C-alpha cells in the first residue's frame, strides 16, 4: 500500500478577477490540476512563465484558495495559512533591517525558542552554507548568491518537513546556481523532507528531482508527469554525463517544446538550444 500523499490536489481551478481593470476579463491561472505528492520526494514544476506555478504553490501554502476543487494537506483540506510547510519565494523577502543572523533566527523567534538555542541553530546553518563571517551583515551588503543562501536557511532553520521553493535560483548566475543546487541536494538527502521546486530550467529539474511535472502555457494545465530515473547521490556539476540524463532530457523536451511553441517562445523542430540556454 502506497503511503498517504503529503499533498492531494484534486481538480483544482483558480480564477483571478480584478474588477477595477475595465478592459480585463477574469483569467484562469490554474485549470483542472490533479496531482499527488508523496512524502520524501523531490518534485519539480516546469513550464513557461504565467502558467500558474506560483499560484499553485500559493494555494498549497494557504495564502490563497482554489476557486474550485480541493487541495488536501496530509488528508485535510487547507483552510488557512499552512504553517506546517516552509515556502521559499522567488523574491528573497529578507528583512533589510536585520542582520544575516537576525534574519535566519526570525522563525525561531516566532516559535519562542530561547535565544542561546536559536543563535546556535542559526550559526550552525550559516556555517553549513559557507556564510560564516557574514553574521552581522545586512542583506544589502550580501551578494545575490549569499542572499539566496540566507533565504534558504531561514526556512531550513525551523526544520519544516515540507518545503515549497519558487524559482529560488532563477536570478543567479550559472555557477552559483550549480553550487546552490549541490548544497540543496546535500541538505535534503537523507532528511526525508518533501520538496516542491519550481523552475523554468529543464536541466535543473532533472538534476534535482524524482519527478517532473510539466505545465502547459495558460490555461495552466498539467501536460505530463515524468519520473527521473537518475541514481542518487547526484553530481550536479556533471549531471549531463549521468546515466539516463540524455534519455530523460529528450523525453521531457518533446513535451516542453510543444508547450513553449504554443506559447510562441520557440519554433517547433529547433528548440533544444533555446531551452538549454535558459
Amino acid at each position, binding site marked *: 500500500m502506497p503511503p498517504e500523499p503529503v499533498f492531494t490536489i484534486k481538480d483544482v481551478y483558480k480564477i483571478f478577477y480584478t474588477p477595477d481593470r475595465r478592459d480585463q476579463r477574469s483569467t484562469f491561472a490554474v485549470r483542472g490540476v490533479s496531482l499527488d505528492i508523496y512524502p520524501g520526494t523531490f518534485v519539480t514544476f516546469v513550464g513557461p512563465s504565467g502558467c500558474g506555478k506560483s499560484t499553485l504553490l500559493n494555494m498549497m501554502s494557504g*495564502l490563497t484558495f482554489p476557486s474550485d476543487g480541493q487541495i488536501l494537506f496530509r488528508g485535510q483540506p487547507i483552510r488557512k495559512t499552512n504553517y506546517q510547510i516552509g515556502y521559499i519565494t522567488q523574491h528573497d523577502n529578507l528583512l533589510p*533591517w536585520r542582520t544575516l543572523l537576525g534574519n535566519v533566527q526570525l522563525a525561531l523567534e*516566532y516559535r519562542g525558542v530561547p535565544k542561546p538555542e536559536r543563535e546556535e541553530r542559526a550559526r550552525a546553518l550559516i556555517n553549513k552554507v559557507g556564510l560564516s563571517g557574514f553574521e552581522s551583515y545586512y542583506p544589502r551588503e550580501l551578494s545575490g548568491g549569499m542572499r539566496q543562501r540566507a533565504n534558504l536557511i531561514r526556512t531550513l532553520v525551523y526544520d519544516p518537513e515540507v518545503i515549497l521553493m519558487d524559482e529560488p535560483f532563477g536570478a543567479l548566475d550559472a555557477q552559483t546556481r550549480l553550487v546552490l543546487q549541490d548544497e540543496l541536494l546535500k541538505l535534503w538527502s537523507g532528511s526525508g523532507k518533501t520538496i516542491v521546486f519550481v523552475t523554468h530550467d529543464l536541466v535543473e529539474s532533472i538534476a534535482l528531482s524524482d519527478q517532473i511535472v510539466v505545465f502547459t502555457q495558460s490555461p495552466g494545465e498539467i501536460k505530463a508527469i515524468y519520473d527521473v530515473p537518475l541514481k542518487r547521490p547526484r553530481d550536479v556539476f556533471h549531471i549531463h554525463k549521468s546515466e539516463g540524463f540524455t534519455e530523460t532530457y529528450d523525453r521531457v523536451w518533446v513535451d516542453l517544446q510543444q508547450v513553449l511553441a504554443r506559447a510562441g517562445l520557440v519554433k517547433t523542430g529547433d528548440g533544444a538550444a533555446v531551452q538549454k540556454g535558459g
Partner: protein
Amino acid sequence: MQARLAREEQLRRMVETNTQARHRHKRLTFFWARTGLLLSFLLLWELLSGRVIDSFFISSPLKIGASFEELFQGGKVFLHFATTLNEVLLGFTAGVLGALIGAVLVIIFRDAYDVVEPFFIALYGIPRIALAPLLIMWLGLGIKSKIFLSGLLVFFVVFMTVVAGIRMVDEGVINSARLMGGSRSQIIRTVILPASYPYFVAGLRMGVPMAIIGAIVGEFISANRGIGFLIQWASSAFNTSLAFAAIFLLLILVVGLNFAVNKADAHLLKWRPKNSEERITTTM
C-alpha cells in the same frame, strides 16, 4: 608572496586614508560654506539696516544681540523659554504617541480605518489652527490648550505619514513572516513597524515645526508667558529687536529638536546605507 601581501596592505591603507580624507574634506567644506553663508547674511543685514531699509522695521543683528543680552539679564527669558519648551515637548510627545497608537490600530482594524479615512482626510484638510480659539475656550488659558494644539498638529502629520508607510509594506514580506509562523503581534513588531520606520522618521521631521507652530499660535491668542507671548508683546510695543531676539530663541528650540530627531533617525535606521558615505566609498 611576502612582497605582494605588503603591497596589498599598502594599497588598502591608501584607499582607507583617501576615503577618510575625502569624508573629512567634504565635512569641512560644508561647514565653512555654511558658516560663510550665515556670516554674509548677517553682514548684509547689518549693512542694509538703517542705510537702505528703515531699521525700525528690520532691526539689525547688533541691536538684536543687545536685546538678547537684555532679555537674559532680567532672567525672565528662562521662564518664557521653559514655558514654550514644555508645551512643545509635551505636545510633540503626545502627538507622536497618539500617532503610533493610531497606526497600530490602523494595522489591526484595517477595514474600519478604510471606512473612516475620508472623514480623516477631510479633517486633515481644514487648518487645525482654526481650532485654536475653540481649544482655548475648552481647555483654558493655561498651557493645556497649547499642548493640545501642538499635539494635534503633530499627531496628524505623523499619523498620516506612518499610515502611508504601512500601506507601502511589501505584502510578500508579510506573507513570508506569516508562513514562518509569526503571530499577528509578532508580525506587527518585527515586520510592519520596522518597515514603516523611514516614514515614521519623516513624520517626526515634519512634526518638529508643527509642534512649535501649535505652541506659538496658542500663545499668540492668549497667554502671559512663553516665546509666542514675548513676540506678540514685543511687536505690539514696536520693539522689533526684541521680537527678533525672541524668534532667535525659537531657532534654538528648532535646532535642538531636530538634533534629537536626527539622533533617533541614526539609531533606528542603522541598516540603511548612509548615502553620502556609500557614494564616496563606491567611487573609489
